[in-house]
């Protein structure tokens, strides 16, 4: 069966979407199917470019290729699911959130919001099946677009390479440094932390300079370090020796960080409104779930730092929990290519929504 994976790309910016796409491509190819990734560039601004992108994908008929049309198309990102093909099985990373849960009238006009909504409703309902990468994405899709979908989870990249090591008493916060990821929350918490832990931020992003300036202004350079972009090997080493991992974004879709921490046998500190991580973090079993306040985060850090044996136990339980999930690319490929989406929620995961 010829498979096409349809997605968008923002040239020279690489993140989770590209990793997922490559993982899917490799898994489909390993399953013995010819596979191609079909992309078009996507521009977030100005608004007319978003409208144009929807139109371009709407006019893209993948059955009318000059040579071999695909038998099945897997759209991943907005607005790729607008393309024309009789056998589309979408695996949605996330919708155009600026038109939905992140809608801000000063950033996105009502016209664009309505156009995106209409586009998604028509295009997603045209799909033979709609899957998402996480229950949080499905929940949003049902709430805003009234399209039912099934969460289909996948493992993080280089799953087998993660390991655990001696605890070096630091809290790791690995993620793109953006407002929604809320690294500043952890930095604010440092002022309330009683224990002598250090904080390591790994990643770059739009808020990196602001975070770095805050570290200098608050004279925390001896306790907090921004590592910038790290290699994959450095990331794994950082996970391996952390006391715990902080990942408290606002309403995250999925969050590789949680799974990577679990693979490294480390407990995760997350927040009650963090979305994706809540599907995997269980309070006092695989990590800590706290209110998104500096005091609550600091208290969680102190609880783990003052009882490293408990932190190690939570981490081990997190690793066992990850193994019990049975995440695999084989399962993803099998589901996307062959399965009819089951009705109801996936019983493997505890629901918090």
């Amino acid at each position: 069966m010829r498979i096409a994976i349809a997605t968008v790309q923002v040239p020279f910016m690489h993140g989770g979407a590209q990793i997922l796409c490559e993982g899917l491509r490799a898994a489909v190819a390993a399953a013995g199917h010819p596979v191609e990734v079909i992309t078009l560039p996507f521009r977030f601004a100005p608004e007319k470019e978003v409208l144009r992108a929807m139109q371009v994908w709407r006019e893209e008929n993948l059955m009318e290729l000059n040579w071999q049309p695909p038998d099945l198309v897997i759209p991943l990102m907005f607005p790729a699911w607008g393309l024309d093909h009789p056998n589309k099985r979408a695996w949605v990373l996330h919708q155009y959130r600026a038109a939905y849960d992140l809608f801000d009238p000063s950033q996105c006009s009502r016209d664009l919001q309505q156009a995106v909504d209409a586009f998604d409703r028509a295009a997603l309902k045209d799909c033979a099946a709609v899957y998402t990468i996480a229950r949080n994405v499905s929940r949003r899709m049902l709430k805003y677009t009234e399209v039912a979908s099934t969460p289909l989870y996948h493992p993080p990249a280089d799953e087998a390479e993660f390991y655990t090591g001696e605890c070096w008493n630091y809290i790791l916060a690995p993620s793109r440094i953006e407002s929604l990821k809320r690294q500043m929350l952890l930095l604010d918490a440092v002022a309330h932390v009683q224990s002598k832990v250090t904080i390591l931020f790994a990643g770059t992003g739009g808020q990196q300079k602001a975070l770095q300036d805050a570290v200098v202004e608050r004279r925390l350079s001896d306790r907090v370090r921004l590592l910038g972009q790290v290699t994959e090997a450095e990331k794994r080493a950082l996970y391996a020796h952390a006391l715990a991992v902080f990942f408290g974004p606002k309403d995250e879709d999925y969050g590789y960080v949680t799974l990577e921490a679990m693979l490294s046998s480390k407990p995760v500190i997350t927040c009650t409104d963090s979305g994706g991580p809540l599907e995997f973090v269980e309070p006092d079993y695989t990590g800590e779930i706290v209110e998104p306040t500096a005091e609550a985060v600091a208290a969680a850090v102190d609880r783990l730092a003052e009882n490293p044996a408990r932190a190690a136990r939570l981490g081990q339980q997190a690793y066992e929990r990850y193994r019990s999930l049975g995440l695999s690319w084989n399962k993803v490929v099998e589901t996307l290519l062959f399965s009819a989406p089951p009705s109801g929620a996936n019983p493997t995961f505890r629901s918090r929504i």
Partner: protein
Amino acid sequence: MATSPLTLDQLVAAIRQEAAVRGRSPLDQQSDVQREANARATTAGRTGTYYKLSSFTCAAEFLPLYGPEFIDAAYSTLLFRPPEAGIMERRLADLLTGRRTRWEILLEICLSGEGRSKDARIRGVYLAGAISLGYRIPLLGAALAVIAWLLRLPPWLQDRRIADMMMEAQVRLLQR
């Protein structure tokens, strides 16, 4: 309560050493290719995304770095951009021949026009740069080196010109 046996600088250095020892996965190699591509794509006045450990806050943290890695980290930390190709070659030659030490390069960047306009600063650079320049003074420099050794100053404040030149040569050889 667990305490780390390492200082923050030592912690970061240990992480990077461990990462280097454990080797790289295919995803690491992809990242390396992307890093190289981004470095080559740099044009005057415009930079793309580049993948470097770029947020050091202490000169001592540069101690494990040599060659292009050091130059990249120095520019990305202090000037928030990668070095131009010509500058990279010149700096590497300075390090290889001993015309400049790493601390002197950091000091130069901080004191340059661009460095002053961007408020480039990093803890310890003036101390390390001044001491490094002091080691170059005939006779007095040798005395300073002995004093530094006797006082057991940290490695980044000792006279490492010979050792660093040898390391630079080795790094250059490994890159071929």
